[in-house]
């Protein structure tokens, strides 16, 4: 396991570095001069040049990349062009909205999908299975931002139970903050849960056909015990892997969902930063988001290798 861990860590670092390079290059290649945007169209060329110098935009590319990465590695994300505060501070405030939202959505989706998927697999072809898979088929097709609108319509307008948008901040109390996250989390979670339930069902059905499940039944275990003790644990690897992959979709989903519910999270920050050509913020955020996807998938692979020692041998 140690050798496997070291090999994977090397790949992880190389991937993170490559990702940062891609983000940097793409952002430089795209049109749009931050200095011109900040000063407006009537700015004189010498003021533009002065601002570019102040923002460090006139330094050679390799130098800008090197100082950026050097800063990142010690937690210095640079200073925002438009907010004039350290990017790390901006991120710290927004993470307190986005991270609970993402965690809430993942927890919700997993708690719904696994029992439902297992139940459908246990009674394959039955009424529960047909019903659940029908609903899941529609759930997969629902765009989360439209689901968000429908939830606002139902639970904020028709039934005035929950706030339609906005976030009061955690200072307003844990419950007030949590209430504001319920609808966005459900909007994010349900389409993910539909996909996860389908995969769980397929994985459990696959393992139910394995010899060890037949052996378990033959030695006298009940159907229920064979299902929960032998089939489900063995079906978990594709499910855990998918939860890791869904994390990436979820992060992207928050960009739109935070716009639907006007939540002051990372998604909205990245959006505003793009609109204002606040390149350093965009650069940091995209790398942070991509980095967290890479790290989450790394952890998922480790968990899978821990569950199933056979996976440790795989070279690729």
């Amino acid at each position, binding site marked *: 396991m140690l050798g496997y861990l070291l090999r994977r860590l090397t790949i992880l670092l190389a991937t993170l570095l490559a990702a940062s390079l891609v983000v940097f290059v793409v952002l430089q290649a795209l049109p749009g001069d931050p200095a011109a945007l900040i000063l407006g169209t009537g700015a004189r060329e010498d003021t533009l040049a002065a601002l570019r110098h102040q923002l460090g935009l006139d330094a050679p590319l390799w130098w800008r990349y090197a100082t950026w990465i050097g800063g990142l590695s010690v937690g210095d994300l640079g200073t925002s062009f438009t907010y004039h505060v350290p990017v790390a501070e901006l991120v710290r405030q927004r993470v307190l909205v986005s991270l609970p939202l993402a965690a809430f959505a993942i927890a919700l989706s997993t708690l719904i999908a696994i029992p439902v998927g297992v139940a459908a697999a246990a009674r394959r072809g039955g009424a529960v299975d047909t019903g659940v898979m029908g609903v899941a088929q529609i759930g997969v097709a629902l765009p989360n931002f*439209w689901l968000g*609108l429908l939830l606002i319509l139902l639970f904020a307008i028709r039934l005035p139970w929950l706030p339609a948008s906005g976030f009061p901040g955690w200072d307003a109390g844990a419950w007030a903050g949590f209430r504001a996250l319920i609808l966005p989390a459900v909007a994010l979670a349900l389409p993910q849960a539909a996909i996860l339930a389908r995969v769980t069902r397929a994985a459990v059905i696959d393992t139910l056909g394995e010899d060890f499940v037949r052996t378990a039944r033959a030695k006298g275990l009940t159907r229920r015990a064979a299902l929960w003790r032998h089939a489900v644990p063995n079906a978990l690897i594709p499910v855990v892997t998918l939860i890791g992959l869904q994390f990436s979709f979820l992060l*992207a989903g928050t960009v739109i969902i935070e716009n639907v519910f006007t939540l002051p999270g990372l998604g909205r920050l990245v959006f505003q930063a793009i609109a204002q050509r606040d390149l350093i913020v965009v650069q940091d955020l995209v790398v942070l988001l*991509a980095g967290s996807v890479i790290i989450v998938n790394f952890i998922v692979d480790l968990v899978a290798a821990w569950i199933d020692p056979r996976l440790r041998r795989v070279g690729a």
Partner: protein
Amino acid sequence: MRLRSRSLVVGAVISATMVSVAGVSLAWTPYPPTAIDIVHKLAAPSPTHPFGTDHLGRDVLSMIMAGASSSLSVALIAVVVGAGLGVPLGAFAAARGGWIDDLTMRGCDLAFAFPALLTAVMITALAGPGAGNAMLAIGIFNIPVFARITRSAARQVWGRDFVLAARTAGRGDIGITVVHVLPNIAPVLVVQITIQFALAIVADAGLSYVGLGTQPPFPSWGRMLNDAQTFIWRAPLLAVFPGVAITLAVLGLNLLGDGLQDVLDPRLRRGR
């Protein structure tokens, strides 16, 4: 099998309807989709306006129809870009193997680390909003998807005896890829195309919802949802129709994909 062929039929019918609606909208819609009629704004559904009118008095049915054409064409081009570059890349990696294969697959891994929609937002916002950039941004994220699936399916074909026979008969890599590999992996690709088409429709709707996709005055489903949100207290139905259109389009394609998968590739039928 019976259940699956039913999803094939339902999916094909929904998808064909969407395509026809999009096609018809190019020639005819009940009203011009961009015609503003402030006097009749936010009208409820009625015989003259079956889906009602929006905040500028535009006919919602006409906008939904026109939205189908913009949504489907963005998705189509995005998938063509993705498959057009991804399939040759994956086939090349599979044919060559070795470090070229490794490099291609590591590149795909890297691309998957970027949340697709987030990066599409970044590209369209910085390169300029509009349908063209939306097509490209979504298309770029289809490239690694197609490269990876083509490569893994093609690798299996490369291990088969008939490929060895073709090799012995003197065919080169390109010849074998075109004559033997691609026809054998076509079913997998067709299924993936329907899946990516559905995802592209959602991505396009998301981009136009945040104002980065198809630009007004040309209607798009995402934009309509965004407008509807502003008037959600007064005209809640406006937020329903475009969403139903997106969901139906995606549902139809997903069902079509599921059905095709079972009909084209019976080996995958087990367990699903």
